[in-house]
């Protein structure tokens, strides 16, 4: 079960956690005014953690409450916290920066909506 700041935001339905690229941020030289066709390393990439899944509720209003709880964690400016993925891996100092429905609400046996949520560990 994943959590952010100890809150189980996505546990109403199945969801998967994916880590973004690791490594170095590299910029083409012509963009930063350096000569030649090469590139220059700028420092480590910021880590993105993406959660993809489906929020599931018994009614449209209950689904709305799940989305509202997630929305309440989207602070501006972002307030970093601890994210723990489904395997129990802990990521400190990550910020919840985006929540996006990935399709329309499906109304059948359950009310559900697919989503993508993005967390980022900003570089100091």
């Amino acid at each position, binding site marked *: 079960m994943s959590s952010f700041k100890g809150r189980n935001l996505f546990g109403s*339905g*199945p*969801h*998967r*956690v994916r880590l973004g690229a690791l490594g170095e941020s590299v910029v083409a030289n012509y963009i930063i005014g350096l000569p030649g066709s090469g590139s220059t390393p700028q420092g480590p990439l910021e880590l993105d953690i993406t959660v993809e*899944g*489906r929020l*599931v509720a018994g009614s449209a209003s209950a689904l709305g409450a799940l989305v509202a709880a997630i929305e309440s964690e989207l602070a501006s400016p972002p307030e970093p916290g601890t994210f723990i*993925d*489904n*395997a129990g891996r802990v990521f400190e100092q990550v910020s919840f920066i985006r929540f996006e429905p990935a399709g329309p609400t*499906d*109304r*059948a*046996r*359950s009310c*559900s909506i697919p989503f993508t949520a993005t967390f980022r560990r900003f570089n100091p």
Partner: protein
Amino acid sequence: MLILMPTGVSFANVSWANVRIVAVTRAAVRAVVEHADAGPHAAFVDVPAQRTRITVTSELGANDLAPPLLGTSGTLLVRLARAGADAGLRELRATAVVTAVSYRMNGNTAERIVEFEAVSADGAADPLTLTPLD
């Protein structure tokens, strides 16, 4: 749902004679199948889009020169009872649209097969209702 030898069938206020079989099939148009991080099996399945098809098979004793036109919309009524009795009379009702008309030979008998797509009143209600009549 399968109804053999219904006691009466009508579509768009026209009675159909010699109906032998009314078959209702339902299928997912879109199924949601979601997996979790824990393993390979589906952790959530739902069917947010489905279709209900009704097939009416009639025995023909003569030429059929005026079959229902494709796209015709109307109320399909099917009355059914327990075999050989009037007791337990029920009525299946659906708003339906004709989507196919075909024929086949079954031994020495000609059969007409009319296929319908059932239409829900609001997208949420089941397009079929089965009501007791007694």
